[in-house]
Every structure is written in structure tokens, then in C-alpha cells.
């Protein structure tokens, strides 16, 4: 479970986040929605421990009393071009201290599950955008984390890759993981998310299950709801 409480972040005079509070529960996929520049990446960087919030804090919970573990797929999909796919995943596993005894087995399993088999031993610089995302996802889940944060994982992916990624996220959720991802594709969010958090100009404008939100605001679709919340002056009403 990931809990954000009162996250506030300023860049000089610009207020990026203002008291952002929400909870992403275990065994659920939570979608963070927002227009470009709404503060999604800043929120994720704070949740991942890459940035410090000016105010507020982040709580991560592990399952069954274990220490909380976290996997992160960042917004930028930079890879180490001269490492092979196998070496790349192995590197991140070793950095995480994951499964020292059966590392090769786990890496091979991930390559197989993510459909990277044909590219396992080619340099990462030759991968397509979709394969890069899969490679970075493998690095993010190699240590079987309780909590997974993905910043716009499907941007730049084709339909087939997007569907494969969705299936993977669902299977992680079904095994009890807390999956938090961001997107600005409403249809994706509607089909995938158990909970959505709508971020408008660094403020949580609405949060809840998609169906409940539509009922509460009387909107016909998430698209309509999002547009009405994003319209100037609507944030105060939404809160």
C-alpha cells in the first residue's frame, strides 16, 4: 500500500503540488490521471524517493509484515545500450539484492514472461520503444516488489504491447501487489483501474472508483469528468 499525505512541492515560484493526499491500496490498480504538467511525474518522483517533498510524507507498506519493497518504472525510458537485455535485468536485480541464489533463473523467467526471448542477448540499444519499456519493467519487478509505480508506462507503445503490459499489471495486482500508474489515456484508465486519482494543477481534484466518480459528478464518461474538472475554475468545486 502506498499512502501520500499532504505532499507539497514548489519549484521557485511555481507550485507543482499542493497537499496531495491519496491512498493506493494493495491488490488494486490505481491510476493517477492528469493533464500534461499537472504534477504526475513530480508526485511519482516523490513517492519513489527521488525527490523530497517540501511538506507531507509517503508511507509504503509491505505485505504480511515484510519490509515494504518498491519497484519503479520512471517516465524516461533510458537504458544501458551496450548491455544485453539479460545483463541489464541482472544488473538491476543485483542492485536490489534480489534472489541471490536463483538469479539466473529469475532473469530467464522474466525474459520469457515479458516476451523478450528473441532479444535476450542483443544490446539494449537495438531495442524498440516497446521492448525498452518491457526491459525497464523487468528491472522494476525483478525483486517481486509489494508496491509498483509506473510513470506513463504505455506512452509510445503499440496496441499489442499495451495489451501485454495491461495483462502483466493485472496479474501483479491479482497476486496482491499495489500497482500505481499514471496515464492520460482515459480509455486505458477506465478499463484497467480499480481506483483513480485525478490531479489538476498539483491538486487532487477527485478520487475514487471510476463508477462511483461518474455517479458522484453525474458525468457520462471519465473523459467528460476529466475535461470538466480540468476546465479553469472547476478545481475548487471539485474539491
Amino acid at each position, binding site marked *: 500500500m502506498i499512502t501520500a499525505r499532504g505532499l507539497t512541492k514548489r519549484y521557485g515560484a511555481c507550485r507543482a503540488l499542493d497537499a496531495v493526499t491519496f491512498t493506493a491500496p494493495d491488490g488494486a490498480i490505481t491510476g493517477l490521471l492528469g493533464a500534461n504538467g499537472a504534477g504526475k511525474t513530480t508526485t511519482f518522483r516523490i513517492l519513489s524517493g527521488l525527490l*523530497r517533498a517540501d511538506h507531507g510524507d509517503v508511507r509504503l507498506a509491505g505485505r504480511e509484515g515484510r519490509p515494504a519493497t518498491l519497484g519503479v518504472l520512471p517516465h524516461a525510458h*533510458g537504458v544501458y545500450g551496450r*548491455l544485453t537485455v539479460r545483463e541489464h535485468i541482472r544488473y*538491476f536485480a*543485483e*542492485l536490489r539484492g534480489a534472489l541471490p541464489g536463483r538469479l539466473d533463473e529469475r532473469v530467464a523467467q522474466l525474459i520469457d514472461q515479458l516476451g523478450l526471448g528473441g532479444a535476450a542477448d542483443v544490446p539494449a540499444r537495438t531495442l524498440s520503444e516497446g521492448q525498452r519499456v518491457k526491459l525497464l519493467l523487468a*528491472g522494476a519487478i525483478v525483486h517481486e516488489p509489494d508496491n509498483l509505480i509506473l510513470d506513463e508506462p504505455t506512452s509510445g507503445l503499440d496496441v499489442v504491447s499495451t495489451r501485454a503490459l495491461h495483462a502483466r499489471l493485472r496479474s501483479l495486482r491479482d497476486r496482491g501487489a499495489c500497482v500505481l500508474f499514471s496515464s492520460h489515456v482515459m480509455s486505458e484508465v477506465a478499463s484497467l483501474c480499480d481506483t483513480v486519482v485525478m490531479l489538476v494543477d498539483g491538486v487532487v481534484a477527485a478520487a475514487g472508483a471510476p463508477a462511483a466518480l461518474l455517479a458522484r459528478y453525474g458525468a457520462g464518461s471519465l473523459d467528460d469528468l476529466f475535461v470538466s474538472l480540468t476546465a479553469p475554475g472547476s478545481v475548487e468545486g471539485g474539491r
Partner: protein
Amino acid sequence: MSRTTLVICCKELREALRDRRAIFASLVATLAGPVLLGAVLMMLANEAGEGGRLSAAAVGDRAAATLPVFLVVSVFVMGMGLAIDSTAGERERQSLETLLATHAPSGAIAAGKWAAVAVMNVCGLLLTLICAVVIIAGLSFGQLGPLDLAAFSLPILAAGLPLAMLAAGLQVAVATNARTFKEGQTYLSMLLFLPMAIGMLSAFARAEPAAWRLVIPVFAQHQLIARALRGDDPGAALVLPAVVAIVLTIVLLRWTASLMTNDRILYG
């Protein structure tokens, strides 16, 4: 050295060795000076042997005066590309964020990158030392005394290794401040003037330096290497410069580690 440091160091070296063009370029950059110098000195030595303008002793003096500059510069050359690529390059290619998101300790990340660069710098020193041995051996074919390889190489290594570590610390710290590979290249090229300038200053300084000068890195190593080349074992004088270099390296590593946790590292 922590396991994480070792994992990062090995990965950086593995990637660096696969970049054949970069390795070739840094080999050329490391060896161009000493090879050219060796060729010129050997030509002069041949002339001296045939009753030319210079005496054999004068050629030997020139070798002893010029080689230390190349040796102190050599520890800054081989690791330069790797230092930039693994810090500023990672920021530019946006893979650094993924690395930092693993929550590997920032000190271990800084140390891993530093260790890889230090290994390259030490390789540069060894290659240049081999060149120096060949040059001195070549000159000895004239009328210079026979070369005592151990008496000559060990003090040079003892002086050069701490400097190679310090050079790596300086290069990694400075390049981590750069946002792009190109920016890092500008800074580290400027940094290369430091050993050159100090080496030249030192070459023109009096033979026996004041004790305080042994506290200044590069300057101290230059003096120690010059002594070793004249067949004079620096002995206990090696200790102070080594301690200074190691302390400064630790300070630079801590600075690099703190940069890795700074918000600014994520923004271009």
C-alpha cells in the same frame, strides 16, 4: 567495498570495454605524447652517440625532465571518457533516474563509478610507465647506465596510484555536475590542463622543493617521479602525498554522493 559498489564498477567497466572506438581514442590520447617524446629522445640519443650537438648525459637529463609530466598527465586521460559517460552521459540519456530509483545507497553508486574510472586511470599510468621504460631502455643503448627496472618503476607506481585515485574522484565529481556528455567533456578537458600546468611549473622549479610543496597533489607526484627517474629512491617522502590524495578522494566521493541525492540531478 560494498557489493553494490562492485556490481556498479563491473558494469561500468564492461560497458566501457565494449565501446571499442572510445577505448581506441583514449589509448591514442594516452600514448601519443610519450611515444612522440620517446621517438625524439631516441633520435637525439643516436645523434649524441655519433658526436652530435648534445652529449648523452644531456639527452638523459631531458628525458628525466620531460617524462614526469607525461606520467602525471597519464592518470587523467584513460578514465576521462568513462567518467563523463557514467555520470553526465547517464543524466543525458535519462538512465540515471532508473538507477537512483533502485534505492542503491548514493555512496555506493558514487564509489562504483569512481572505482571503474580509477581502474582506467591506473591502466593509463601503467601504459605510460611501460612507454617510459622503453624510452629509458632505448636511451641506455647509448652511454647511459643500465636500467634498474624495480628501483625505477616501484616509486613511480607508489606515487602514481594515489594520484590516479584522486584524478578519478575529481573527474567523477566534476562530470556529475554536468547535465550532458558534451558539457562534461568541456569541464574535464579543462581539468586536463591542471596536471599539465602543474607539471610544467614543477619541471621548471628548483630540483629540491620546499616541504610544503609535497602537500599539493600533482606537484608532489611530479617531484617524486622526477626523483625516481634520476635513480633517487623517494622513500618516506611518498607517504604524505599519498595520504593527501586519499583524503581528498574521500572528500570528492562524498560530494559526488551528495550530488546524487540532490533534486537537481533529475532536471536537465
